């Protein structure tokens, strides 16, 4: 089903639903925040909406910090249902990829359940975007509850899930639209897909021999500039690795789950000091092998939605496409 929202009605509507729900929107080029009148919709934000599902600090246990204390489990429990508006389709697709692994994780699931995701299509692909090449069709809105397409007069809204339908059932600001509007959506989708085909590289990667890829000699050269920092993993809407830490202050203790980067030396270091991926090259290789081989082999899709954040933000100038090209032309 499709609705239409006039452009000038958007902010009003966001304020309206803020009364009933917790509403988050992109507030600046850096990322999302609670809606308080500020809205940044020009480009995709540096930090994706991933942080709402795999947060920077997920408390999983609370305990009294003395030997023998019994832990009490903690579950994320929002007071109101959350709405996140302005999520880019690629980021939402990223969540569906994470869900393949985290399908039974109660923390992730609870957060998904309690959140309505409203997507917004980009006006133009950004310079570093390549989502389509990774097989992402932004118009399909995978992982979203509704998708907004910006048009001359306002937003055309496509409903994508029962959660979305329920939300829009009684929103006065929106008017139902007919077939004509639907066709304009389909037309935009068709034009986009014709211009932006899926990359043949993925099929080649599926066929590639895992060990040959691993042993290829291009890794050394590609990894030389890499700093092994965590920028690409923390900004990535699909990277899901986490660390678990016990934090204690005085007698209060919490066990928390937090994002971690596979680029860090500590990531794979055993307590004994042995580290199977001690060298920076090994860690670099593991990141891309995971995304474009291990995950691809297991789930049929790469662990990448082509949002381009890593390319845009990598201070060392590493370009994901060059890695994919090297891997797929081996």
């Amino acid at each position, binding site marked *: 089903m499709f609705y239409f929202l006039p452009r000038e009605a958007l902010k009003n509507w966001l304020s309206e639903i803020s009364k009933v729900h917790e509403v988050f929107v992109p507030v600046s080029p850096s990322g999302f925040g609670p809606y308080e009148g500020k809205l940044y919709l020009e480009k995709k934000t540096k930090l994706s909406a991933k942080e709402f599902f795999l947060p920077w*600090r997920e408390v999983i246990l609370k305990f009294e910090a003395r030997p023998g204390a019994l832990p009490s489990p903690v579950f994320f429990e929002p007071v109101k249902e959350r709405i996140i508006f302005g999520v880019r389709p690629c980021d939402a697709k990223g969540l569906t990829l994470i869900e393949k692994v985290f399908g039974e994780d109660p923390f992730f699931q609870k957060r998904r359940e309690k959140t309505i995701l409203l997507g917004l299509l980009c006006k133009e692909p950004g310079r570093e975007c390549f989502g389509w090449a990774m097989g992402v069709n932004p118009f399909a809105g995978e992982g979203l509850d509704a998708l907004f397409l910006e048009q001359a007069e306002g937003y055309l809204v496509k409903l994508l899930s029962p959660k979305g339908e329920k939300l829009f059932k009684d929103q006065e600001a929106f008017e139902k639209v007919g077939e004509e509007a639907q066709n304009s959506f389909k037309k935009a989708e068709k034009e986009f897909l014709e211009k932006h085909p899926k990359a043949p590289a993925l099929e080649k990667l599926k066929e590639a021999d895992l060990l040959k890829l691993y042993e290829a000699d291009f890794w050394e050269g590609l990894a030389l500039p890499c700093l092994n920092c965590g920028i690409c993993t923390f900004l990535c809407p699909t990277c899901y690795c986490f660390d678990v830490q016990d934090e204690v202050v005085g007698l*209060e203790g919490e066990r928390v789950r937090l994002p971690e980067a596979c680029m860090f030396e500590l990531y794979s270091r055993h307590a004994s000091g042995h580290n199977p991926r001690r060298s920076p090259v090994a860690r670099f290789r593991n990141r891309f092998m995971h995304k474009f081989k291990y995950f691809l082999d297991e789930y049929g899709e790469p662990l990448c939605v082509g949002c381009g954040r890593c390319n845009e933000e990598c201070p060392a100038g590493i370009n994901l496409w060059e890695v994919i090209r090297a891997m797929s032309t081996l």
Partner: protein
Amino acid sequence: MSWEPRIIAFLCNWCSYAGADLAGVSRLRYPPTIRIVRVPCSSRVSPAMILDALKSGADGVLVSGCHPGDCHYLTGNLFARRRFFMLKKLLEFVGLEPERVQFAWVSASEGDVFAKVVSELTEKIKLLGPNTRFRKILGGKI
């Protein structure tokens, strides 16, 4: 109940710790605000130790060692002096109350100086109030 600051004092084993001991033996009065950590030399104290004390809730930190020329290891305190100078400048630069982190020379025979140092430091920190700025609270601020 009036608030009493908690001060972590890193005292060098050879001078200041003995100085503190002398203050005790001489029955000198000073406020019971300090918790002593004995260290081999003032240069053993690293900035992480000082900041960790503040993070864990100390209201002040004192590092005390031998006077220049008296170091058991000859020059440890001279290295320490440079380091603490730089640390103090850095902490002030980011807006940490400079009075909270203090350095002193106290020799083994200066029990009175030690008592004075602790009294003065306690007064300074009482004026500032509890350390809220650099104290970690679980799940506090992100």
